[in-house]
């Protein structure tokens, strides 16, 4: 190899690295991926938040596309998200919203929903966070889209608002249908 050509190796290496860094700028490094995409929703059998309802299992959720929303009253972003969820669940009649009340006080959770409205068809009580771990949850709020076969198709970390619903959830759900 020509000696002069060799001297271009550092600048070539640097430009490649710069390209990588440019790629890095456009993304959010703090977004943790889910290992459960395209895998079945984990099995569970947990109490319901509704006073007299029996235990809920995965079979109770099946029968169409549904949204699993992990929430808690101690989580400030969940309070921000709640009105949007109410609005969206009223609009999207054919999709059921399932809540996972994550490491929360059952009493406070019931009160919260009674006062502010309940967007959820079913509400699973995950008091010790074990189901959260099975879902690979890192905190709240987190939202999963599950198809009619019970397969997890998408996971969203953080608040859902109308824009996020329209931009990511709605097209995805249309596609699954």
């Amino acid at each position, binding site marked *: 190899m020509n000696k002069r050509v060799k001297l271009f190796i550092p600048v070539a290496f640097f430009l490649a690295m710069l390209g990588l860094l440019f790629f890095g700028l456009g993304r959010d490094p*703090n977004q*943790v991926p889910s*290992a459960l995409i395209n895998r079945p929703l984990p099995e569970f059998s947990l109490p319901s938040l509704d006073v007299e309802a029996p235990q809920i299992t995965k079979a109770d959720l099946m029968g169409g596309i549904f949204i699993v929303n992990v929430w808690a009253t101690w989580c400030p*972003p969940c309070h921000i998200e709640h009105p949007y969820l109410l609005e969206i669940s009223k609009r999207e009649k054919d999709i059921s919203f399932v809540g996972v009340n994550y*490491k929360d006080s059952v009493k406070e959770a019931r009160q919260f929903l009674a006062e502010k409205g309940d967007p959820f068809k079913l509400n699973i009580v995950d008091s010790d*966070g074990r189901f959260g771990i099975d879902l*690979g*949850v890192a*905190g709240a709020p987190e939202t999963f889209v599950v198809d009619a076969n019970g397969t997890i198709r998408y996971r969203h970390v*953080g608040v859902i608002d109308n824009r996020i619903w329209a931009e990511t959830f709605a097209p995805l759900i249309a596609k699954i249908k």
Partner: protein
Amino acid sequence: MTKFFLLFVLTCSLPGQAWAAIEVHEFDSPEQEARFRHLIDEMRCPMCLNANLSGSDAPIAADLRHEIADQIAEGRSDEEIIAFMTSRYGDFILYRPPLNSATFFLWFGPALLLLAGFFVVRRMLRQSRAATTESALSADESNKLHAILDSDSDTKK
């Protein structure tokens, strides 16, 4: 903007995430405790910026520590526990990336580079042996250097 705000809210709930998670776990044997420490040292807290399970105060880190402690107490092996965690959180949770085709260069790249470096030394030695000149600086160069350095000194008080 929402995203940024959200990130802020999410992370502001973990001011303690960078330091000590000080808590007590009971184990049957020192070996179990050592295994526990090793596992929580090598696993990443999924919601933190960059901290392992042992170094994080985040609630999820505490939950995962309890989970690992419970599984150790139940007699699960390290491999089983790691499989349990990666099936839920992906390889992201491992601070020691598993060796596979994607990480081959990560693990062996530096060794290959070191090898290449030693080949360079060998080649240079051969070339040097072939070279006959004794002086490091050519006569012209050393004169120049001398002149420069002397003029340096002269300008000094």
